[in-house]
């Protein structure tokens, strides 16, 4: 049995790729700071890589009180085994109460392996994290069994159609992967310093060390639409591949990316990786512009979890208006360029 009392502090896996800290690491540090307050605990970033010590100050500026660095040539490119060994060794040595990992392509590989190795639970793709009681309400007659200061992890399931709040009351650390783009990073504190601990558990390659034969970067210059905070999405109503220019201009003005519906991909106007929907990607940006998209159920299934949906369509009866927070009936060819202009003016006035 674990002695749960031994486990202290909120730890964050500070993902880096090519010695650049990923945005998710800062987001997790921001959230870790919130969680650490009621626990009266420290925030620790776990930095794993090769020649990465220079990144510690950045992590301090974004809220890390302490950085544990595992620096080894074996850790140059991400591979499951040496990284899982590094992170689980840190957990076993430093005993965190909470361990947060980004739900990125790396984190969703690393998290399950590490949680199984250290024998604890893992809640995937969390969108809300809180400190609270488990059970949420005391069971009559068993009030003393209610546990306090537990990590409550909320996540969508079933393609976003159900939500569950999950606790891990009897195992430590309480582990979660957290969806990128959901948590807020803090404004960096210039000149902040963290306590730095260098730790190396030793890396002896075995059969679990998969060999990287080849790394091919920038397979595409299209950024992943799943990472975008604002998506400007076009459908058949945009009319032509050339006319996507007005969507690209809007995306540039507002700091978003262009995506599209299946009809656009089927017409050969845009590549498949930009497609939102059941047979494309599921996206949950802060803002989703549906422009000239009628809103077939298959499309809606891929975007309805967006925080704010703004639809522009000339057909007043388009089903997209059933899920839009703000629907505008009108001609996209006139509205979109004007919108770009006004947003630029608005931003200029504010700057």
């Amino acid at each position: 049995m674990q002695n749960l009392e031994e486990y202290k502090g909120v730890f964050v896996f500070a993902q880096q790729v090519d010695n650049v800290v990923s945005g998710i690491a800062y987001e997790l540090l921001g959230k870790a700071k919130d969680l650490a307050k009621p626990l009266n605990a420290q925030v620790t970033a776990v930095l794993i890589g090769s020649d990465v010590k220079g990144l510690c100050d950045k992590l301090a500026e974004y809220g890390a009180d302490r950085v544990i660095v595992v620096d080894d040539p074996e850790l140059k490119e991400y591979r499951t085994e040496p990284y899982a060994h590094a992170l689980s060794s840190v957990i076993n040595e430093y005993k965190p109460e909470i361990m947060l990992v980004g739900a990125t392509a790396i984190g969703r590989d690393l998290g399950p392996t590490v949680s199984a190795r250290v024998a604890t639970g893992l809640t995937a793709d969390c969108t809300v994290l809180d400190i609270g009681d488990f059970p949420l309400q005391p069971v009559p007659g068993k009030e003393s069994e209610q546990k306090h200061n537990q990590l409550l992890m909320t996540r969508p399931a079933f393609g976003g159609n159900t939500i569950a709040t999950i606790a891990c009351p009897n195992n430590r650390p309480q582990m979660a992967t957290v969806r990128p783009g959901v948590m807020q990073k803090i404004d960096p504190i210039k000149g902040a310093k963290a306590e730095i601990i260098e730790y190396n558990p030793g890396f002896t390659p075995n059969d679990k060390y998969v060999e990287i034969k080849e790394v091919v970067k920038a397979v595409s210059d299209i950024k992943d639409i799943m990472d975008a905070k604002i998506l400007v999405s076009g459908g058949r109503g945009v009319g032509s591949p050339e006319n996507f220019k007005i969507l690209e201009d809007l995306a540039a003005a507002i700091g978003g990316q262009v995506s599209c519906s299946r009809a656009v991909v089927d017409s050969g106007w845009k590549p498949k990786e930009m497609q939102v929907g059941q047979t494309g990607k599921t996206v949950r940006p802060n803002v989703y512009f549906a422009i000239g998209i009628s809103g077939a159920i298959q499309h809606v299934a891929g975007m309805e979890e967006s925080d704010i949906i703004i639809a522009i369509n000339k057909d007043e009866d388009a089903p997209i208006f059933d899920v839009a927070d703000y629907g505008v009936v009108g001609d996209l060819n006139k509205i979109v360029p004007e919108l770009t202009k006004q947003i630029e003016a608005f931003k200029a006035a504010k700057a």
Partner: protein
Amino acid sequence: MKVIVCIKQVPDTKGGVKFNPDGTLDRGAMLAIMNPDDKAGLEAALRLKDQYGAEVTVLTMGLPKASDVLREALAMGADKGILVTDRVLGGADTWATSSTIAGAIRNLEYDLIITGRQAIDGDTAQVGPQIAEHLNIPVISYAQEIKIDGDKVIVKRQYDDRYHMLEAKMPCLITALSELNDPRYMTPGGIFDAVQADITTWGRADLKDVDDANLGLAGSPTKIAKASDKVRKGAGEKVVPDTPEDAVKYIVGKLDEKHVI
């Protein structure tokens, strides 16, 4: 060569999720299907069978009716189906599920285990890597291409801005993306044979080297504090502005109000 494919029966969400009048999910109204990522994993295994004569065993954990997806897999060309079912295994989280499946797999010989990346009901993507960890074998998740080279497997693995060509010594576990391939259809002969095929059924007693403390609801470290079927967001506002300028003013106003710009 021996390949084990782990598959799961899930409610179908294609063509829309069904809701009760009160906005909760109507699970009974949805068909049960083979999870899409798992089906791609099965197709990858069947291609290894076509190419190298691999023997393909499909394994699922679930209620007795989950044998339907095993029969579907047999009708597509799998050689053997194993159903792991037992009341004490119910309510398992990913830790308990992976402990159970690893306990079943320890009875079998294998060179390769293929699982889907994630199931469309839970979306966790955890069970595959956790099975590998319990069995102490390497895992390659999110496979886009699979090739065999002697006792090694070569896999194309996609990351955010790059892909890796990875080589692992077998035995190893691979998690498959539905983008990996287009699964074949069942054949009429295959369906006929599958209906009559024997499905091996295992219960708790058949699991090897697994502690009771790691099984079922009681053996699950994660506990549900609250669950709700999310009430679907209804329509918001809809405006029909007289001019494009009015339309833009409306949108900019909303973006400002919501602190987007």
